[in-house]
């Protein structure tokens, strides 16, 4: 068998040729760009890149900068809350819609709609909704509850949660649709069997259905996490990083350094740190998920 096997390299020739442009792009643009950025993060590049080595100076300065530390902390808070809430809300919505309700199409569309809006629009809309003078606070006070206060965007301690609300509003529709697709992929016989066994519905969801939906969960996780790490436009539109520096995020730090402070080296160091953080999470996970035993069941 092994002696007659054709050379692996020349199998599916046409599809391999078709993939060449993408492979080249990936190598030169992504890998090349990444290496270039990492290399220049050890230089003293100002407005323009220049190879003047300064060792780890940029990293030392980065980790001594309060703005960067605040940004990392914000990303952690936003990321964890976003991940948990968007999954819980998305799954519950999907499970509710899956009860063979009427007007399913309409409801699904309404819930998915926020995802069709850009982060800039989302940010502006929620900036207005959370504005104490014409948003929620004003409406509730108009109903007669005069002491009602709800102005997260003006309080440095909780401003990041104001951003989180907007993020969840925008993102949970997508998670719902993905989950719904997963639920629809479950064989009806599984449900019938669980009913015959007299298992309560909630137990069936948690112990039978969710484990069966593992691939959908993994896909959704990747989409949501990449969205979290690159968060930038929502912050710029909704708070501009304020009040003070309370809603700064790493991507905004990179932009500010590269284009406003004319300090490319510092910006590269910050983006390299972002890459390292992502790699620390993604690489072990990828090995666990896709490496090891090929046949999972």
């Amino acid at each position, binding site marked *: 068998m092994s002696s007659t096997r054709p050379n692996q390299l020349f199998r599916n020739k046409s599809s391999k040729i078709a993939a060449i442009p993408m492979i080249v792009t990936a190598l030169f643009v992504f890998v090349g760009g990444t290496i270039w950025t990492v290399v220049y993060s050890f230089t003293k590049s*100002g*407005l323009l890149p220049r190879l003047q080595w300064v060792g780890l100076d940029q990293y030392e300065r980065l980790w001594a900068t309060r703005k960067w530390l605040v940004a990392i902390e914000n990303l952690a808070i936003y990321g964890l809350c976003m991940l948990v809430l968007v999954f819980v809300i998305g799954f519950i919505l999907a499970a509710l819609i899956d009860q063979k309700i009427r007007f399913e199409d309409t409801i699904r569309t309404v819930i998915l709609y926020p995802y069709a809006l850009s982060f800039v629009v989302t940010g502006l809309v929620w900036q207005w909704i959370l504005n104490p003078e014409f948003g929620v606070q004003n409406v509730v006070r108009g109903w007669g509850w005069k002491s009602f206060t709800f102005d997260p965007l003006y309080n*440095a301690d909780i401003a990041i949660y104001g951003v989180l609300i907007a993020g969840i509003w925008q993102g949970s529709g997508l998670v719902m649709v993905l989950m719904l697709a997963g639920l629809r992929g479950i064989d009806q016989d599984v449900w019938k069997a669980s009913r015959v066994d007299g298992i309560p519905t909630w137990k069936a969801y948690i112990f039978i259905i969710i484990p069966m939906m593992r691939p959908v969960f993994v896909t959704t996780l990747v989409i949501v996490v990449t969205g979290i790490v690159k968060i930038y436009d929502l912050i710029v539109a909704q708070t501009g*990083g304020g009040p*003070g*520096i309370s809603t700064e995020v790493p991507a905004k730090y990179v932009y500010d350094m590269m284009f406003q*402070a*004319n300090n490319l080296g510092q910006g590269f160091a910050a983006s390299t740190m972002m890459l390292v953080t992502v790699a620390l999470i993604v690489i072990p996970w990828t090995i666990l998920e896709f490496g090891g035993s090929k046949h999972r069941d």
Partner: protein
Amino acid sequence: MKLTTKLLTATAIVAASSAFAEDLEVMHWWTSGGEAAAVGELAKAFDATGNTWKDAAIAGGDAARAVMVSRLTGGDPMGAFQFNHGRQAEELIEAGLLRDITDIAQAEGWADIVNPSSLLDSCTVEGRIYCAPVNIHSWQWLWLSHAAYADAGLEVPTNWDEYVASAPALTEAGKLPLALGQQGWQQRGLFNVLFAALVPNDVFLSVYDGKDADVAASADVARVFAAAADAREMATNSKVQNWNDATNLVITGQAGGQIMGDWAQGEFAIAEQVAGKDYSCLPGLGVTELLSTGGDAFYFPVLSDDAQTAAQSELAALMLRPATQVAFNLAKGSLPVRGDIDLSTANDCMQKGLALLADGAILPDTAQLITPDTAEQISTLFIEFFADASITIEDAQAQFVNIIATAE
């Protein structure tokens, strides 16, 4: 690429044969009412030469600079662009992206007419001139609303201390004592104004020019931080973002005052307010009367197209001609870069500025002394300081000392 080059050449030939009617793209960040009126004067003068001013305005200096730099470094230069002269353009000049306009400067005799000469020095790198200064802007102005003080039943203050003392009464009368836009550059600017006005000049210069961290840690600078804390308290309820929105609070009498550069003057002019009657201006906060001579300048990228380059030359020469200078600066509220022109039509505040300039009561602008990197660090410090009343004067000063110690 080749086709583009051919098309460009063809366009250039057509353009050149039709008597230099060039479209020159000019980028700037002058978008408020007064600023737009001023830039309109420049455009009008340029159009009168038969060329066309293609206006490309981007709101907000920070955003505009980012776009300009990425277009320049990305190989898609515009015809001309506005920058604050000083250290912002240093690297662009080093990289050879900007056109040397020394020949135009010599032909027009800029060396003799530009006053103070430090403006031209800021355009000069290794003996060559790279930019055309168009105006002098000074930060050190306190704008006070007569209407707000009349409503509160108070006399209009004549210096910083009286102003701080009047704050509680203003608050009681439902006025905002100090209007301050919540943007880092405005907060940093306010601090630098306090710095220039409240302590001797040599302290200011040894911190910003000498980068002397010991002086930055001294009691003199601590006094400036104490004044900044006063300002923070006075501006607690100031929720506006843009400087012109803050100025509008002063114009409409909702706020007692604002510390802002002389470009605020253009807003008062558009609102048809009269200096001395509707509003007062105190240079150097009424404490130390002096001006910093920063300003705006136009830079000209190196272009491969000869016709465009010729149009650049025309624009550069035009910008310092007396007629342009008068029309432009009257609209903008800034001071002209040449001392030999008649500005008798200027109002009270501008006359005060002209007198200070003539007396030589001037300081260099911080943009001429520190890099954008340092400026951004100081901005971040004051964004935090003004947003969070729990940051103490000592903390803030310690961070400031750190920034100065690592500045270059």
